[in-house]
């Protein structure tokens, strides 16, 4: 399972400086290790691997550990996925089971 803040496989920590400038930064907000959260993370990994080809970074934020961030980042639904980069910021909610909707929401249609 992905602990908070750690990068997902696909990108090595040490390769940070080699991160391409157009790398996607995706933030997944969860609240503990609930089934939805686990599912969401799995789905996200899969989608990223399939569509983003290593040019991505997933940050997982567990609001149970950092409740303050719920307010700071205005999170209501769990799980919420935010695409921080590239801008504009995109937001989708749910456990990401509906791949089609995820792609639409992340605007991944255009990227190959």
């Amino acid at each position: 399972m992905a602990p908070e803040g750690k990068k997902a496989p696909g990108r090595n920590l040490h390769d940070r400086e080699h991160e391409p400038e157009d790398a996607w930064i995706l933030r997944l907000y969860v609240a503990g290790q609930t089934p939805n959260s686990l599912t969401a993370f799995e789905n996200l990994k899969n989608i990223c691997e399939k569509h983003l080809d290593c040019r991505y970074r997933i940050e997982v934020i567990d609001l149970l550990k950092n409740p303050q961030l719920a307010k700071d980042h205005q999170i209501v639904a769990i799980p919420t996925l935010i695409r921080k980069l590239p801008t504009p910021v995109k937001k989708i909610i749910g456990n990401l089971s509906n791949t089609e909707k995820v792609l639409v929401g992340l605007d991944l249609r255009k990227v190959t």
Partner: protein
Amino acid sequence: MVTKKSAVARPVRTTEHSEFGKIPSGIKGLDEITGGGLPKGRPALVSGGPGCGKTLFAMEFIARGISDYGDPGVFIAFEEKIDDLKRNFLSMGFDLADLVKKKKLVLDHIAIDRSEIEETGEYDLEGLFIRLGSMIDAVGAKRVAIDTLEALFSGFSNEAILRSELRRLFLWLKDRGVTAVVTGERGDRTITKYGLEEYVADCVITLDHRVTNQIATRRLRIVKYRGSIHGTDEYPFLISSDGISVLPITSISLVHPASDERISSGIPRLDTMLGGKGFYRGSSILVSGQAGTGKTSIAATFVYAAAKRGERCLFFIFEESESQFRRNMKSIGMDFEPLVKKGLIRFHAVRPTAYSLEMHLSMMLKLIDGFRPRVVAVDPISNLYPIGDDIQVRSMLMRLIDYAKSLQITGLFTNLSNDRETGAYGLEPTEMHVSSLMDAWLILKNVEGNGERNRAFSIIKARGIAHSNQLREFVLTGKGIQLLDVYKGSEGVLFGSARIAQEKREIAERLWKNEEIERKQRELDSKRKLMENEIALLRQKFAREEDEMRILIGQDVSRQKEAVKTMKEIATQRREDR
């Protein structure tokens, strides 16, 4: 005013017969209706249309909860921005920023994206719970307000998830032991647009903002209050510069303590006409009459006398400004200045058309409640008629009088009658309507005759008092109202110059009579003198005759004596040889 803090709340068990604890709502007048406030530790739903006052209700619940009862609170706004809230409520006397700084209040805005967010699968609203939880924990909140929960419905399209989360939320709030006020938008046929009332079983209140006859009225209704007796009426309420005021309930039954105490009208001879003692304390008095008959002066005199007795008085002026009123009354001997300074009398001059009837009533009740006078005067109530119809004005007066009586406050109300001369006293339907609410009724008249108008009044009724039914003339002098003596001419009671003329006539008559008596007296005296003279003369005459008689008798006697003597001498001479 800090109440003792309750122990850590545990989930309240719901049984049919459980007695819910209540927590003061912080809304003026509401706790009287609900018998103590809102159900403690449970959610209450407040629904209403836009502009009805839901947000204000929720905020007062929180803010007063802090300032008056020491309960820290959390306010979650879905629609208003925090700065807007702070600014709006500052003008009502709530310094929210300060409360936040003092760690008594957490104020948070939860943004719900209106635009379509892709929903990609199952989700829940745990983020909301997390935020709520940390807010409550941050200050140890006892009260929570959520305004308005239905905003969630515009942000998330999966209603099934939403409803299940709402159900969870209300249980969660109960578990946390907080008393929550949740607002919802009024629905067409449901209490709230999205049927939040389904989840709130304990207390549902609706707020209404209606416009009838161009007058806006606000009403509050308790739709549901489980486990408690509550009035089922709609209660008018007012939103003023210090928040919501729900009007106190009028008595359900006419149970007012009736006082035996009598108070002076301020006019001693009027007190005499009122069974010798004046009005009953706590009674309602109507003083009506056409323009210029002296109603305001009578009202002022009544109030002035009460204030001089040391009783607090509240005077509502609907016709003129306070300074004008005081100036006018000064000219008839009543200087209110020192009484105002001592706080014994308070004036409240308002242009009637500025507010609705409900608002007037609310303001008046609030002022009465705050000032606690023993006497209230309203001059004139007729200025309220343009604002509402007869029934509404009467209803308003009824509630006002009711409230006054419940506090043993004596009320004096003046009413301007129309200039129609219908019947002996110029009575009209509206006056009849209102007069039935009053215990005593004085009608002031201008009596015309001899080309002049003079002031007069009569007591039409005074419940429980054997009152005079005289039509009495009075004048406004520099020393106040003076009742004048009653003069009856051959045509009945006289007024004005006719009365003065009659007075003069009677004085003249009396004087003339006195002179007559003296004259007769003098006549008798001279007659007596004459008589005495005559008697004296007669006596003298008689005395003379007596003297003459005596002399004659004396002469006779001496003649006889002489005769005898002579006979004896002759006899001796003659030695009578017989």
